[in-house]
């Protein structure tokens, strides 16, 4: 395969057809998602938005990938991954220790729902197809695991009897792998022939099975090669479950749980498969019949610094795979991350002078702020620092004037120590944001902010990094330096943000309604952020509702009193499923518990908002419902900067 020019464009694991390239691109850090004790036990749903990294995670445990990794003990790039897999028990000195069987479930199962037969028979065909495909996938994976030829060496494989469940007609257990293969291939052929036939389906002759007998059949002790169990552990990984119909998905999950098989099962699906109630309840689910689901973006929300560390390393790995005339090195140095330098001096000097003039005018000669103003004027530093200092001072003066309780000595000069105390890093960040808005400085630049803009989703990050990298590799052709200027980075992020915004109506369920709602949240956040006092500095990037209100949405209790809240529930579920809102349940503040709804960080770019987590402004449920139809309008009394 020719090395890709821009490897960031290889978004999906499926499009990487080479195991070595896949391994080189896989960032071992993401394995922190897995609990070392329980990752290969019982049934575990794995959920994320599209592009969260589910399929890559599943593919890592397939035999061919594990063998490729095992065969390269001295490859420096793979050492950390090897060690992490050893720590998980998936690899040992003797080779792979887990037989991972991956099965894509998106292949035409949903079409079965349209068959003109009763539900029980539809389910029989569904189970029939799934059983034979699981069996065939296990046989293929077992051969690959032992590095034997498929299907020629299947006679060396034996399958034990089923216990507690009847084998389907035509399958005589115990049997050899060859017999099982023939049975499965014949059964699959028969079912497909029936489905493909133009003739009307005759209920009596429809093939199929009553349950997922394949799960107990493929238990580790039952599958042997040359008389020895093929692997100590088998991990069945069912991918793309969201492509099944709602009824098929429920039936499958319920059946897998009921069977309590000793084979570990991963059920990988997008959040969009969940119902509104399930989606809103995610993140606080306890006491389920299966192991707690692995929710990828919500996990990274709690560990967002880890995510951002990992994606930088993902970027480094991608660059190493790039086809380039010259070695390119690491990702971070390509992104200039400061506005220092002579080309910015004049612009910041101008900005500082403008703000200083405003500050002087606002103080109109009173001695209250005289000390603060003198201290700021006396500051010796770069013009950027001066601009920030003046803008920070303007914010602090606004806060002082805006105090609810005024003292008797309001006209007295405020000591300069008070200025030092109040001017913290948050004020400085707010000042930076405000200056960027007022004077057109770039704001969304630097590797740290780019990683943040990935918004906890690997595909989103790869898209942004791919835009940046395209520019980097274009530079030598235009005889320009590789490093990207802050303006260019800012411009690229703005374009990407607009793309995301424009796609929402077409890409997402309830898209138009959702975009109206998101716009209201964003406009509200923007209004709140850019108030002269910069409350919650550097700014808010989302809203929140009480956990009690969330519970009412889940149970539907509130639908009677506020009928429109049903729409809100659907819209919120859709936004959370597609990572357009990032939920954080059980957030404790102000003596209450909240469900925080952060905007996707890239949407923050579209609305000129800051990128930090942790700052939001809660709204009552009634207001959120109103935002579905009416855009947010700033209160007239409040003075907004913009």
């Amino acid at each position, binding site marked *: 395969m020719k090395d890709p*020019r821009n490897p960031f464009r290889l978004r999906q694991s499926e499009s990487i057809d080479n195991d070595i390239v896949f391994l080189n691109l896989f960032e071992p850090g993401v394995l922190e998602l897995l609990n070392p004790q329980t990752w290969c036990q019982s049934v575990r749903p794995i959920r994320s938005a599209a592009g969260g990294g589910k399929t890559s995670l599943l593919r890592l445990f397939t035999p061919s990938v594990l063998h490729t990794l095992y065969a390269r003990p001295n490859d420096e790039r793979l050492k950390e991954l090897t060690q992490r897999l050893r720590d998980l028990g998936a690899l040992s000195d003797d080779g792979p220790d887990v037989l991972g069987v991956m099965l894509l479930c998106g292949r035409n199962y949903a079409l079965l729902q349209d068959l003109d037969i009763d539900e029980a028979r539809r389910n029989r065909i569904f189970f029939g197809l799934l059983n034979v495909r699981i069996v065939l996938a296990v046989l293929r994976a077992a051969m690959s695991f032992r590095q034997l030829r498929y299907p020629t060496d299947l006679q060396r494989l034996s399958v034990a009897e089923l216990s507690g469940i009847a084998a389907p007609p035509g399958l005589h257990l115990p049997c050899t792998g060859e017999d099982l293969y023939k049975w499965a291939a014949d059964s699959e052929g028969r079912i497909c022939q029936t489905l493909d036939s133009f003739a009307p389906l005759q209920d009596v002759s429809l093939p199929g099975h009553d349950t997922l007998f394949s799960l107990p059949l493929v238990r580790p002790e039952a599958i042997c090669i040359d008389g020895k169990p093929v692997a100590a552990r088998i991990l069945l990984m069912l991918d793309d479950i969201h492509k099944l119909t709602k009824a098929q998905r429920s039936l499958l999950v319920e059946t897998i749980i009921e069977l309590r098989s000793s084979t570990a099962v991963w059920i990988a699906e997008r959040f969009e498969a969940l119902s509104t109630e399930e989606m809103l309840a995610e993140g606080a689910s306890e006491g389920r019949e299966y192991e707690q689901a692995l929710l990828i973006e919500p996990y990274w929300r709690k560990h967002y610094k880890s995510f951002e560390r990992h994606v930088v390393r993902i970027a480094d790995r991608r660059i190493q795979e790039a086809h380039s005339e010259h070695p390119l090195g690491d990702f971070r140095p390509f992104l200039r991350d400061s506005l220092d330098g002579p080309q910015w001096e004049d612009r910041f000097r101008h900005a500082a002078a403008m703000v200083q003039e405003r500050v002087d005018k606002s103080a109109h000669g009173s001695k209250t702020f005289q000390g603060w103003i003198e201290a700021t004027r006396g500051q010796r530093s770069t013009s950027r620092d001066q601009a920030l200092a003046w803008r920070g001072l303007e914010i602090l003066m606004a806060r002082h004037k805006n105090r609810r309780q005024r003292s008797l000595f309001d006209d007295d000069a405020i000591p300069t120590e008070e200025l030092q105390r109040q001017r913290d890093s948050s004020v400085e960040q707010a000042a930076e944001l405000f200056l960027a808005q007022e004077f057109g400085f770039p704001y969304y630049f630097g590797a740290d902010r780019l990683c943040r803009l990935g918004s906890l989703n690997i595909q989103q990050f790869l898209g942004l990094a791919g835009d940046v990298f395209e*520019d980097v590799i274009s530079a030598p052709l*235009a005889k320009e330096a590789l490093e990207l200027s802050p303006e260019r980075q800012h411009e690229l992020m703005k374009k990407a943000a607009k793309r995301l915004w424009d796609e929402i109506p077409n890409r997402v369920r309830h898209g138009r309604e959702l975009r109206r709602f998101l716009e209201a949240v964003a406009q509200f956040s923007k209004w709140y952020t850019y108030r002269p006092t910069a409350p919650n500095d550097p700014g808010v990037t989302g809203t929140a509702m009480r956990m009690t209100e969330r519970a009412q949405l889940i149970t539907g209790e509130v639908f009677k009193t506020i009928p429109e809240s049903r729409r809100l529930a659907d819209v919120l579920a859709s936004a959370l499923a597609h990572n357009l809102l990032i939920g954080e349940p059980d957030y404790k503040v102000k003596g209450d518990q909240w469900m925080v709804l952060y905007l996707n960080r890239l949407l923050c770019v579209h609305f000129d908002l800051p990128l930090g987590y942790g700052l939001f402004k809660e709204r009552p449920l009634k207001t959120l419902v109103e935002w579905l139809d009416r855009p947010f309008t700033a209160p007239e009394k409040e003075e907004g900067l913009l």
Partner: protein
Amino acid sequence: MKDILAEELLVRVLGWNRVRVAEELPAIQALSLYKYDEYQQFSPGMRFIESLARWLGQLPEDRRDAAYRFVRNKLVFCSAAEMRHWVEMAYPDFIRPHLLRRVASENGYSALHIPRIAAAKEFHVYQRQTLFLGLSDGARIDLFRRSNPDLNHEQIWQTHELADDRVQELLTNLKESLVLQFGGEPPQEAVRFRTIVLLDDFSASGHSYYMPKPDGTFGGKITKFHHKLVDPADPLHRLVDLRDTEIIVMLYAATEQALEHLASQSQALWNDHVKACYVEAVQLVPKDICLLNNAENSIRDLIDAHYDHAIFDKHLEKGGTGDAKYGYAGCGLPLVLHHNTPNNSIALLWSYEDAKVRGLFPRIKRHKELP
């Protein structure tokens, strides 16, 4: 030339900065990889990006961007894969429905009962009584044969110019097949082809099939074929019973202009002699891509200003225009076929390698001048 050098050359010729490079180059690379590099008349070692850079390089700097935008936004390139697809579609999607309709009407079947008609003996006989002839080597008869296992190899022939013994052989083979289908000697009148399908890859003007002559009459391949077929003294005449014969002109791709010309000329020529004549095209090239009336001024200026009249030979003259700026017969196409650019496209696209203005997809001269 190495890819990277060609890309550097292109960037220099167009004076792009890194922003333009990042915006444009991925698309150009994708187009090259996906289609344009497969152009079969590039000289050895040449690929699309190098050809593009050289082509743009011969234009004045202030016109290069307009020329580049024309290539990005207006050029139509028919790849080998697309052509293969059209060949594969020609019989099942265009010819077979004609046969099914005729069998239905002649035998009292409902035209909507397709499986019933297709299963009928009458259809199998009639399908065998259909003769497929190539109008040029562009007809891709080998691929057509392989794509249609329902058809007998002995009813498909690469050329419409059939020698006496070939005519006899076609009829003998037809009879052998019919003996099997009838389960015995077929009636004498059945041993005739009832439909003749004339296959070709592309037509922009239709003139090579029905060529207008100065005296008002017509020449061209189909005209000649018609004259032979209707001439009782010609061996070809023995293939058919004219009153019962249908003629189908089947093109894998054709312009609307060509189809209009073919339809009117076919009607005038064939209607008095045969049962019916149809003209079909798998891929229709719409009129609105023609640059003669639809091009922006910047493109018109380019076409007018960058032209070497040395390419205008007696064959192009037959198209009735005074120059070849807009191609043969002023068709004005922005179209390239993967194996050769048609001369109906604008000269700026196909002008020969040795001309003063070199085409982006230089054309191979079909009619070599003697030194």
